[in-house]
């Protein structure tokens, strides 16, 4: 039985694992945005943003297997430590790009917004965030690419996703299916990476309004 044939036969399992993988990554990313975005908004004008970025940087430096391992003690095995680990990894790109995007907004534009009587909140929502959005989307894109691969390790802590196919491949080493299962897992993740990249490229174009694309 060849790889194509085998994959056709095991399609439901493959699609199931792919869906699990997608959901896992979106949960991690979603949580990172839910926590990271407000954190960035609260600190981007303040000196404390340095501390926030440093802590997020430490998370990113901790190797994935170690971080998953550290989270098992408080959270047990399964989905919970997997989602949290991915969230912690996504923090740095999400927070850093939000901070950088907001700080890159021309101070003259912000000053004139305040000078015309837009409140702090109005300035943030109507001027700063729309202008920072393309940079923020780039952060999401980077974060997603990164955690798509890391999410494969979730299988090692009994988490969901395509990592399980890879792990099954490893445990069935020596049988012809070992290579097929591993390939399915790897290719599945690469395909997801490409699809997410296309999605974020489109989102990036959507959030860059016409006025910002024009070159002076």
């Amino acid at each position: 039985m060849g790889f194509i044939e085998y994959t056709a036969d095991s399609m439901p399992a493959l699609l199931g694992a792919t869906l699990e993988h997608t959901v896992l990554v979106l949960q991690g990313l979603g949580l990172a945005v839910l926590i990271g975005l407000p954190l960035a908004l609260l600190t981007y004008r303040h000196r404390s943003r340095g501390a926030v970025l440093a802590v997020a940087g430490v998370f990113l430096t901790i190797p994935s297997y170690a971080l998953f391992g550290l989270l098992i003690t408080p959270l047990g095995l399964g989905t919970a430590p997997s989602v949290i680990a991915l969230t912690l990894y996504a923090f740095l790109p999400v927070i850093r790009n939000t901070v950088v995007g907001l700080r890159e907004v021309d101070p003259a534009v912000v000053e004139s917004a305040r000078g015309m009587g837009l409140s702090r909140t109005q300035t943030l929502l109507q001027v700063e965030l729309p202008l920072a959005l393309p940079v923020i989307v780039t952060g999401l894109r980077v974060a997603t690419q990164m955690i798509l691969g890391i999410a494969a390790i979730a299988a090692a802590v009994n988490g969901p996703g395509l990592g399980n196919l890879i792990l099954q491949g490893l445990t069935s080493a020596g049988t012809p299916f070992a290579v097929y299962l591993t390939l399915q897992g790897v290719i599945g993740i690469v395909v997801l990476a490409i699809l997410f990249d296309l999605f974020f490229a489109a989102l990036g174009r959507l959030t860059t309004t016409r006025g910002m694309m024009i070159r002076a």
Partner: protein
Amino acid sequence: MPDHMIQLVELTKSYPGQSEPAVDALTLDIPEGEIVVFVGPSGCGKTTTMKLINRLIEPTSGRILLNGADVTGSDPDELRRGIGYAIQQTGLFPHRTVAENIATVPKLLKWGTERVRARVDELLTMVGLDPAEYRGRYPKQLSGGQQQRVGVARALAADPPVLLMDEPFGAIDPLTRETLQNELLRIQREIRKTIVFVTHDIDEAVKIGDRIAIFSEHGRVAQYDTPEKVLSEPADEFVADFIGAGASVKRLSLTRVADAAVATDWPTVQRGEQPRESDREFLLVLDEGRAVEWLPRRDGRGGLPVLNAVGPDHTLYDALNAMLTNNSDVVVVTDAEGTYRGTLDMPAIQDLIHADDTTSVPRRATKGEVR
């Protein structure tokens, strides 16, 4: 005695960690409907003072009165919606069209769509941009001068009685700056706002201002007076140094062409008519009241187009510039609509430069005349 639109009372701004305040107990009255220029070297506190007025910078102590009401403690956002604000870098929102930019404050004030649209077109026309063409453009599709026009239009959008302008023409090339200054004066004749204008350029101050406040340091005003007085009677050495040499040439920029002796005896000929004899080298060809061509007397062919005519709002300094540019010793003078009024020549301008200081300061072409 004019009403005072803005009154600054003992206004002080000090920053923690700095021994001397940025603005030190400044008291200044700004009359309604006038352009008051804050001018001074960098770091003198002129911009800080301006930002204290709309409380982009909160004063440490002192009071700000706007139209008689104390606004030192009022809601700063509400306050700013009633004060136009234009800055050197324009601060136009790059993600919004020209129309959306201008509509910012009207929308904050919840004007109806139709009213906003009409106001945008009215303002674009006022600042010399065709609404149909420019309404939908983005700031980056405009030249620096056009962006600045939109910036001024945006500042005027909700018809605020007060306009603050922070070096609005500072980053513009000299020729365009000249045009924008003239247009600001033209617009001001229509709208008669109380304008606080910050610049570091004394020439601009002299040209634009009804009054000039010369800042020395820490927001101290060395002299607060009309441009004529500042130029002819500097209050102290600092002011004298700051206005610098060449004050008599500067006086040229105080006199408007409208107030100068314009010669009306230049030989003219209507387009299509036979040139008649004259003692001048060139005849001026008029077409429907406009001067269009310099025609050589001798053979009546190969005329030169009339370039760089000056209008009533231009100063004698502009007229001198036009002559130098044209490599000619005479310039055509028109009225506001462009209709031929006469000519101005080099000797007339030289007379003014060399005239005796005390007697020759010409009556200033006050913008107030129209009032």
